[in-house]
């Protein structure tokens, strides 16, 4: 028999992203971390220290286990949550429950249930699910709104969140956004002290290395996320095991990230997100592939408490003119799911996966698919964003570099592109002609290009039937990026 006190920051995404200022987003996640950290220490040197323990805090959630539930303890914990949410979360709501949970064996779900039962999971997952449902119920019960609107002069609205009144001066933020911004700046200062070899800055132009008289600068951006973490978490038998796994996982990702930046000599970067199993890094475009490469190698070698953790990455080279809001959307919302989907479909669950785009000026969407109708049965689709495993990605990068050295020129690529519009069959025939006449591709590179990039798996004998999926879009973007003629490459 045990008593559990649990808290959860309500609508945490709203807290993190309601200010769309880059610094404020970074600062908001720091505030959540500080809130969790302060809650973790709440029992230390209090009269309740010996009555229970903190099992886990992180990501805006935490819970504690107690042997008893005296009324004063509930008051104490309630008071602490209130105090700390005012201090760190600037008044943002936090739901909490304190209840007794006896048995963790639950009745079987009715047969019509579509959701999976907690039956097959470890003890910790059952406990956490049980507490989560209590927390959710509490959140719903407390879901109230203030029915009277706040009237604000349009010119007084905070330019970052657009919902609160800004402070005095003309360009000022509201107090909430201001505090988030200050926290974001403070976090980067701490990083600069801890890792002096790299300057962490919010100035995206400075990261890109763009000169004043240069046109548009370019940035490398990556967003990484652990795969199937739920499956690992489900197996834990105790909160302590889960807690130490989470800590070790976060530590190992941080170590991998900072050592990748240091070993590749990255001089300027921004790390908007680094917590749990998520990471987002903005860095000079020339450093993107070496850092990704290094992350893939180092993360693949690590095991966290005996568990092999794999990652999916959404990565892009983007122009500095693209607002942070869209950069985030592209890598996290569009490309990362593509890498995850490709991993699931391929069945290569022990590999890290990547979805990459080279987003040039005036392009604003991560997902792009071109479909050439062709003749019946010979349709070709070109998803530029399709995910692939790292060995395949490396192979393509290598192929682009060697093809470029073997005089495969942009004009030939354009001819190949136009050939695809005729359909797979004529495109394959035309490609032999164009590659022989206009490039010095050796036989092996030409074969690799045709079989793995241009029309994978298609042959002149009986290739018709369903739409071909070509990797040529990714190839062309890598060609533009990696030093194709007049592409200003050099990554």
């Amino acid at each position, binding site marked *: 028999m045990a008593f559990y006190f649990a808290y959860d920051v309500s609508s945490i995404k709203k807290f993190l992203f309601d200010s769309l200022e880059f610094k404020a987003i970074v600062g908001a996640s720091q505030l959540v971390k500080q809130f969790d950290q302060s809650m973790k220490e709440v029992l230390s040197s209090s009269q309740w220290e010996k009555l229970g323990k903190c099992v886990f805090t992180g990501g805006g959630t935490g819970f504690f286990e107690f042997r008893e539930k005296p009324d004063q303890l509930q008051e104490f914990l309630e008071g602490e949550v209130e105090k700390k949410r005012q201090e760190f979360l600037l008044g943002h709501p936090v739901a909490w429950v304190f209840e007794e949970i006896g048995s963790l064996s639950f009745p079987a779900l009715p047969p*019509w249930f579509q959701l999976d039962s907690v039956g097959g999971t470890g003890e910790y997952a059952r406990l956490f699910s049980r507490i989560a449902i209590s927390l959710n*119920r509490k959140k719903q019960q407390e879901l109230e*709104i203030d*029915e009277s609107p706040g009237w604000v002069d349009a010119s007084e609205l905070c330019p970052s969140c657009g919902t609160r009144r800004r402070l005095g001066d003309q360009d000022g933020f509201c107090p909430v956004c201001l505090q988030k911004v200050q926290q974001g700046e403070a976090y980067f200062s701490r990083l600069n002290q801890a890792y002096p070899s790299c300057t962490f800055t919010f100035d995206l132009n400075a990261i890109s290395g763009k000169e004043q008289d240069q046109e548009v600068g370019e940035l490398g951006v990556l967003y990484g996320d652990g795969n199937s973490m*739920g499956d690992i978490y489900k197996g834990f038998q105790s909160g302590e095991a889960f807690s130490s796994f989470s800590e070790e996982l976060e530590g190992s990702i941080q170590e991998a990230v900072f050592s990748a930046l240091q070993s590749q000599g990255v001089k300027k970067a921004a790390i908007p997100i680094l917590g749990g199993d998520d990471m987002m890094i903005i860095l000079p475009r020339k450093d993107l592939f070496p850092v990704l490469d290094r992350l893939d190698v180092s993360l693949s070698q690590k095991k966290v408490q005996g568990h092999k953790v794999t990652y999916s990455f959404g990565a892009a080279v983007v122009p500095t003119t693209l607002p942070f809001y869209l950069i985030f959307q592209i890598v996290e919302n569009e490309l990362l799911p593509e890498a995850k989907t490709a991993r699931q479909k391929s069945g290569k669950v022990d590999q890290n996966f990547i979805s990459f785009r080279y987003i040039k000026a005036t392009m604003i*969407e991560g997902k792009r698919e071109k479909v050439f*109708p062709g003749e019946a049965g010979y349709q070709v689709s070109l998803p530029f964003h399709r995910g692939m495993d790292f060995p395949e990605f490396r192979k393509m990068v290598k192929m682009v570099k060697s093809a470029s050295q073997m005089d495969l020129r942009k004009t030939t690529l354009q001819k190949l592109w136009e050939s695809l519009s005729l359909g797979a069959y004529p495109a394959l025939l035309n490609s032999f002609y164009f590659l022989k006449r206009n490039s010095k591709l050796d036989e092996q590179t030409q074969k690799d290009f045709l079989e793995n990039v241009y029309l994978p798996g298609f042959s002149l004998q009986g290739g018709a039937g369903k739409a071909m999926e070509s990797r040529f879009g990714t190839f062309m973007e890598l060609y533009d990026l990696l030093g194709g003629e007049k592409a200003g490459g050099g990554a």
Partner: protein
Amino acid sequence: MKRVDIVLKALTPVAVGGRNSDPNYHLGMSSENDRFLIPASVIKGAIHERVRGLEHLLGAELALQITGKPQEKGEEKPSASAMHATDFSSDIPVSMGQPRNRIRMNRKTRTVEAGGLFSMMTAPAGSEFRGSLFFRSDVEEESVQKVIRALRGFPLVMGSGKTAGFGSMEVVRAERKAEESQELGVGFYRLILKPLTPFVVSPFGHETLEKKYFLPSLPTVSGRAIPATTPFSRSTPPLPSTGLPGVFSPSTLQKEKYGDENISFEVLREFVYGYEKLQPSLLQRKGKRLEPFGGFVELGPEGFGKRVPVQKVFSIHVQRNPRTKIVQTFWVQQAHKPVALSCLVSVDKSFTMDRILVLGGARGKGYGVMEVQSIAPYVDWESWKGRIESFSRFMEKELGNKGLFVPLLLTSPLVLGAGENLLEGFSRKFILGRTGSERYFDPGVQKVAVQEAFEPGSVVVVQTEYSMEKALETLKLAKTRGLGNGVENGWGDFEVYPMREGGDRE
């Protein structure tokens, strides 16, 4: 509105930018759904230019009426143009485009300058583009004819490469269409609008971030937009639709994370069961994690249908280096052009409805022109009885709760004070959903109201002691008036949730 259907024929290759174009070319022809297109703003610009050029023939008054008065310093609002245009679309697929290369010569050496080659994707000469012009009712018929004659006199020129002869367009047909209008009696209607140009609605907050480069837009129109410009007394916010009614996806509609977006699982029963019994389950199905479906979904008498695609349209305004033609900087206006928009409108006093409405922001720039696709009395409440019976049966059979239970799906924001019941005779059991902030400008007090509200997509379960007939009567009345505060914004609209019936575990 007076409507004139126009057919433009390209006399030379044409490269009109501004809308989605192939980024592989330096200059690209705008397209939509893989067909070349000339955005309404470009058509309006070319016509304004022609009208100004022929002001001496058309008369200053008519010219001003057509072009609108430019905003002067200190002036609150300029006079609007009395003419709207639709996007002009062609049947020519983008794959039939003609790539054209241009080079820049060095005048001294008479050779091509380094980097002086740039490529453009053009719609070929001979391409036809179809669209319509709408003149406000106060423009005289004779004036409309004068403007049309002015357009037919000699080719219009638009787009890039004008100096090289590109973009010459001839008006090959201009057909004045009969006015289309419809008598509407007092009642409560479902209105389906077809956007003829994209629409723009500024979201709150987002527009100020890096405004220099990106102007986003909400995918929905404010409920105030229709009553502001038409005799409809109230409207719910027009939401993207496929031609069938579209609603915000409920919080209880889930999809596989990283899975096919069109596979949806309606888990209202599971959520209610878990909530009532504190019975834990995993938010996954057959081992695959689930996440909220998000966006919009069709909701008709048969229940939930397909996801409603929300087509974003980006108008790109590019500044190029005049020498190299390489992009120096650009800004992007995001807009939306769904297949249709759907809303509910009230008519308190009969009137003759025009078939064309102009809604949303940036109306002066050609955005927000809508055609009434259909308007019909609202009848979906005929399916409510079965839905309420089904949900109440579930509450009794699975949870032992006897009585009449109604799961309400909020289809627009709901503002309700703490502890207040939605309706007299109905008590709130619980809410599956979340709150958010709504913002609107009140012209009365000249201020922005920031209002907390239960977000559309939330599900509110209520219980009533009323008989089924009385409950239905009360709900129908509430449907036409709206629930809670802010009903003049179109808030407080709802549907009875179509719960999944039967369906044992597969």
